[in-house]
């Protein structure tokens, strides 16, 4: 058996894969958080609930209307994004003039409410969601067995992350978003509808969380609390990457997922806390985060 640093290569590769999978979700979710925080200055505590919402849209679309995974992949981000837009327009936008703490408290309350409603309606236990037929099975890579669905999640989430990065850094709409992040009043005085940009941005962030929820449904189970467990780690990812940095959020998401996976191989006892240890070290050495502007 091939050994690397005294560990069988299968175990190493297996955990590396788990790390990349987790990293994909960290990246998608912290990307949405970073986009929202960058423009709205709101720490979106409802992000985990919106991720859960995406998974439930996939599950219910299948159970109620027979709409399969591929429909859900399009439908769930739209539904969750629209829900986000409604929330932003009707409630969150009223808090911008107040201290940022109110936005945090509001989204935290929203998360508790959503999770409570779903727990009341569907119970706390997880429900399985089968991966689509085209993505079942696996591939033997020689040194390890790769379940096709997991490979799909890694590739697809990477494509989505790069697309969102390009949207923000390379397009005219993205230029408006970046400018509005710096000086919303001036941008609005140019005749750009900044309140509409804020709504779209929140919808984009929420939609990304919804998309992550659909991707997660076949891997983890669909349950009302699935977001709560994840979101704390994702906040740590955002802190390590640097608040408001788009590329930082993506790269840090994958890196920390892999770091967590590798820790499971070499020192399993620490795997649950390794991300928080890294966060503490980064906060001491580089308080603005690895990719933050102000060091």
């Amino acid at each position, binding site marked *: 058996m091939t050994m690397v640093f005294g560990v069988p290569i299968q175990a190493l590769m297996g955990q590396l894969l788990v790390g990349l999978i987790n990293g994909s979700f960290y990246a998608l979710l912290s990307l949405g958080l970073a986009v929202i925080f960058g423009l709205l200055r709101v720490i979106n505590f409802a992000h985990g609930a919106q991720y859960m919402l995406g998974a439930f849209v996939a599950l219910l679309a299948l159970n109620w209307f027979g709409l399969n995974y591929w429909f859900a992949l399009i439908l769930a981000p739209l539904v969750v994004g629209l829900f986000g837009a409604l929330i932003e327009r009707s409630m969150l936008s009223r808090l911008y003039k107040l201290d940022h703490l109110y936005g945090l408290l509001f989204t935290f309350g929203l998360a508790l409410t959503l999770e409570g409603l779903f727990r009341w309606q569907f119970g706390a236990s997880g429900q399985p969601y089968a991966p689509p037929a085209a993505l079942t099975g696996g591939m033997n890579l020689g040194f390890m067995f790769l379940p096709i669905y997991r490979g799909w999640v890694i590739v697809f989430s990477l494509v989505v992350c790069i697309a969102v990065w390009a949207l923000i850094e390379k397009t005219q709409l993205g230029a408006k978003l970046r*400018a509005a992040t710096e000086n919303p*009043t001036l941008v609005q*005085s140019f005749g750009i509808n900044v309140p509409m940009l804020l709504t779209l941005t929140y919808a984009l962030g929420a939609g990304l969380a919804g998309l992550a929820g659909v991707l997660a449904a076949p891997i983890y189970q669909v349950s009302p609390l699935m977001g709560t467990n994840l979101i704390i780690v994702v906040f740590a990812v955002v802190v390590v990457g640097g608040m408001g940095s788009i590329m930082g959020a993506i790269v840090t998401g994958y890196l920390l997922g892999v770091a967590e996976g590798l820790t499971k191989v070499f020192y399993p006892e620490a795997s649950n806390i390794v991300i928080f240890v890294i966060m503490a070290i980064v906060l001491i050495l580089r308080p603005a985060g690895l990719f933050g502007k102000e060091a």
Partner: protein
Amino acid sequence: MTALLEVRDLHAWYGESHVLHGVNMHVNKGETVCILGRNGMGKTTTLRSIMGIVRKREGRITLGGQDLMAMALHRTARAGIGYVPEERGIFATLTVEENLMLPPQIASGGMTVDEIYRLFPNLEERRRSPGTKLSGGEQQMLAMARILRTGATTLLLDEPTEGLAPVIIDAIGEVLRELRKRGMTVVLVEQNFRFAAKVADRFYVMDHGQMSHEFPVGELAARMDMLHETLGV
């Protein structure tokens, strides 16, 4: 002749502090009007109130008969007006070209990008650099250029020469004269009245939130004593 831009009994506040105390002014189509005054007299606030950036305001502001007071901030520009702030407002996370293309076109008849690059060749050379890597003079040019692209026919210009070298100030004067030839209506806020004398048709002097004097450029020489006293220069 009715004025294009008309301001009547304008009051404005920053929080509790009452800054404008009944400003009256008008600007005719194609005219360049300069507001002189010491710091803190309300010149910038007047521009920001016309533009709708200062929202706590009372009185009447009309542009070509349209009531600007009733408009949301992002609608004001569509009435045909553009604002170049004193701090220039160049965005650091946008390239020079992205800064230039940022304000949406609000009317036809604005300068094309080619015309702008002919007028400001430095901007074309540096169009891929981040906006704030430009020199102060270039940033001022960019702040003006991006409004000229939009087709705005009225320009609010806040201290465009502040902190710039004489040769750059001359270049900005050249641009303003070119704009006047094209029929642009300009409201210019300046401390430097030697510069203003070369570009303005008419002057207002602002004192404690009101217009205290108004005179055409021809009377500038005769008003020097008053100006020295009011402006403290």
